[in-house]
């Protein structure tokens, strides 16, 4: 069999894993956003105790390798709790919670970069702190955060392949099955690499589009 045939033959199977990989990335991005944004807000606007707790969370999740966390949850914590969860769910949760730690710091930086005068002006009009954060500070902070936040996509996309280790049927898992079947690692891993690069390109294009759509004249270029 020549390389072309091998690739053509294996490709449908690997490409099927593309949906699992994208699913992992989107789920982790979403979990990371839904957890990371409140954490960032809490760290900036919460009291010192809240802020300290967020700091500890961030310290732990950023300080541990993905693989260690995956094994810990997959073979340790979840089974101990008597939970028999699908590998995909465990993978998405762990990647998401770890991403939340990183995302919270992106949001924290963005929140801190909003001029304190914006909060003063909002409060002087009678807005509560919560309303001011929601209606004035966050819309600005999210726009400021977007370029840095976009980093999470390629990071999660590439990190998602570690879910191979707990048996999620994502692209790398399927690729290695094909390698065992054909004993032709080079063409198959090259094809897999090409798909990753393509996904990365398309995702970044999408994020740039969002950035453009959300941009406001003169804002964010100070």
């Amino acid at each position: 069999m020549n390389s072309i045939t091998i690739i053509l033959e294996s490709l449908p199977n690997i490409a099927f894993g593309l949906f699992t990989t994208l699913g992992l990335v989107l789920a982790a991005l979403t979990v990371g956003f839904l957890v990371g944004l409140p954490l960032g807000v809490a760290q900036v606007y919460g009291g010192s105790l809240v802020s300290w707790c967020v700091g500890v969370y961030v310290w732990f999740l950023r300080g541990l390798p993905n693989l260690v966390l995956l094994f810990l949850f997959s073979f340790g914590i979840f089974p101990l709790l008597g939970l028999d969860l699908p590998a995909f769910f465990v993978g998405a949760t762990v990647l998401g919670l770890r991403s939340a730690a990183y995302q919270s710091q992106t949001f924290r930086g963005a929140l801190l970069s909003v001029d304190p005068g914006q909060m003063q002006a909002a409060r002087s009009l009678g807005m509560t702190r919560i309303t001011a954060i929601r209606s004035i500070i966050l819309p600005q902070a999210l726009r400021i955060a977007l370029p840095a936040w976009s980093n999470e996509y390629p990071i999660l996309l590439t990190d998602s392949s570690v879910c191979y280790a707990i048996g999620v049927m994502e692209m790398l898992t399927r690729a290695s099955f094909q390698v065992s079947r054909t004993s032709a690692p080079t063409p198959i891993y090259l094809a897999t690499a090409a798909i990753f690069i393509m996904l990365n390109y398309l995702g970044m294009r999408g994020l740039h589009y969002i950035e453009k759509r959300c941009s406001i004249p003169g804002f964010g270029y100070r």
Partner: protein
Amino acid sequence: MMDTVLRVSDLRKSFGSEEVLKGVSFEVRRCDVKVFIGPSGTGKSTLLRCLNRLVEPDSGQVWLGGDEITHESDIDFVRRRMGMVFQNFYLFDHLTALRNVEIALLKVLKMTKAEARELAMFELGRVGMERFADKYPAELSGGQAQRVSIARALAMSPEVMLFDEPTSALDPELTGEVLDVMRSLASGGMTMLIVSHEMEFANSVAGEILFMEGGVIAERGTPGDIFSDDGGSYPRAQAFLSRIMKQA
């Protein structure tokens, strides 16, 4: 007492070991225009910020209408009744001029979209900015931005307007348009407290000049008395005025 809008009694504030306000008292009646002048660092801005508690005073009392507000727990409700204009405008950078004026009407006063839009357009009209309703803050000149920020405060129908050096951040050729808006507000009967370095403006618009120095109101009087003081009744204000005239 009926028409007393604001009464301030022995207001004090320290930052660390430095006492910035050392007991300030005054009273503001409806339609009063009071201008605070004095060297920088004497607590003028801090005083204004203590009135709506953007800065929490250490002691002393402030009454707004009949309500003592220094211990009022619902400060947000009090702040609706006092408009504030900042030196650096602080327009909401992500919102158009119109949305800047609308947003508190929607979020604080819970107006409907149609009501808020109508009132916001009216207020922009009052400051001559209705043509710029769809512009973002970065697309406005400093003078235009400050006029929008005045409209934003006016839309809340405040009982008193606080101006914290409203023209200090502006290029000299842009101060006129802002001062004109303030003049027309004053002649329309708005109650105003103004911190300003614009002496000509203070002279023409103020009912009373309060000269602050060292955290207290050192001297006070009508503009006529303060600015053309021949009898030497206002030595400290005169010393300050001659200092800044020399610079100019």
